[in-house]
């Protein structure tokens, strides 16, 4: 019998995936794994085995900076004046474009 060795703890890793070149990285889900190598393998199998991704980012959840403090994100006073509601950009943009004779800009290539 060999002497027992300490075993690494299994921990969560967050996986982000890019569906095609130029797309943003979107959160895909998470995997449990004991280290980066197996986390990479499991991310590939869970979020890439059907050729649905061209790139994956795999990051240890413990390395993610978590901001959830309500004082920072959900302060109690009225913030409605910070929201753009009631201000319609579309008509102003159309008028400006007509004035300048410009075309509507195309979406950035994907």
């Amino acid at each position, binding site marked *: 019998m*060999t*002497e*027992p*060795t300490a075993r690494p703890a299994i921990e969560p890793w967050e996986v982000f995936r890019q569906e095609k070149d130029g797309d943003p990285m979107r959160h895909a889900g998470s995997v449990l794994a004991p280290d980066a190598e*197996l986390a990479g*393998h*499991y991310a590939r*199998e869970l979020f890439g085995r059907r050729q649905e991704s061209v790139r994956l980012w795999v990051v240890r959840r413990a390395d993610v900076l978590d901001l959830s403090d309500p004082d920072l994100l959900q302060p109690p006073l009225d913030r409605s004046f910070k929201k753009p509601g009631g201000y319609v950009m579309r008509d102003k943009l159309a008028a400006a474009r007509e004035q300048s004779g410009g075309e509507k800009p195309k979406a950035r290539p994907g």
Partner: protein
Amino acid sequence: MSVASLPTVALGHLLGSMADDEFVIGFSDSEWTGIAPLLEEDIAMSSLAQDEIGHAAALYGLLGELTGADPDALAYDRDPHEYRHARLLDHGRGDWAMTIARRYLYETSDATRLEALIGGSWPPLAQLCAKLVREERYHLMHIDAWFARLAGTGGEPRDRLLAALDELAPDAATVFTPLPGEPALIEAGILAAPMVDLEARWRAAIAPDLDALGLAMPPSPERPSRGRQDHGPAFAWLWDEFTMVRRSDPGATW
């Protein structure tokens, strides 16, 4: 090369042995679906098993084009003694360490075999092998990770891996069993070297890994010429499983 000069019979043995290897290891590994050590590994192993069945389908397909046989019939309608997979794959699913030991020996052997085929003179096989190598690259990464972890974790993991390697040792090199008509394949430029040479290449390739992990090199097979025959009860059981549905309604269209 022209089709007329193809060593068709020997090529059939090569394709059949490769297809049966992939088919049998795929079905063995699929036995983990639902019961692998953790959910992520369950999905990974099931996906790897599907990959192997996919490789088998491609190889049976090629064999079918060569001989006119129906690929489904090749896969499912033979008796157990007609399969020509390596005896390495005849030890039953076993525990997780057995699966990892078997996959390590098989995947490294398969890599050596594929290397000897991708530059071959028969384009359909050379091109298929070039594709298989790209998928097997991930299989090797996955199995290297597990093999090193079990070997390097003292106590139960290493002890179980050693026991599995002991059980597999007599059949460890059977992927390299010489094929009937092998010289014709080499003469035609389809296969780069005799199986006995490929076995030596494989041993040279895995020696540094085994050395680093403090593991012994497996011995040569006891009956080298019968390394793809005499399959035994574990395969009889597996055959019964994987032909069960097909036999339940012979000739049905699924």
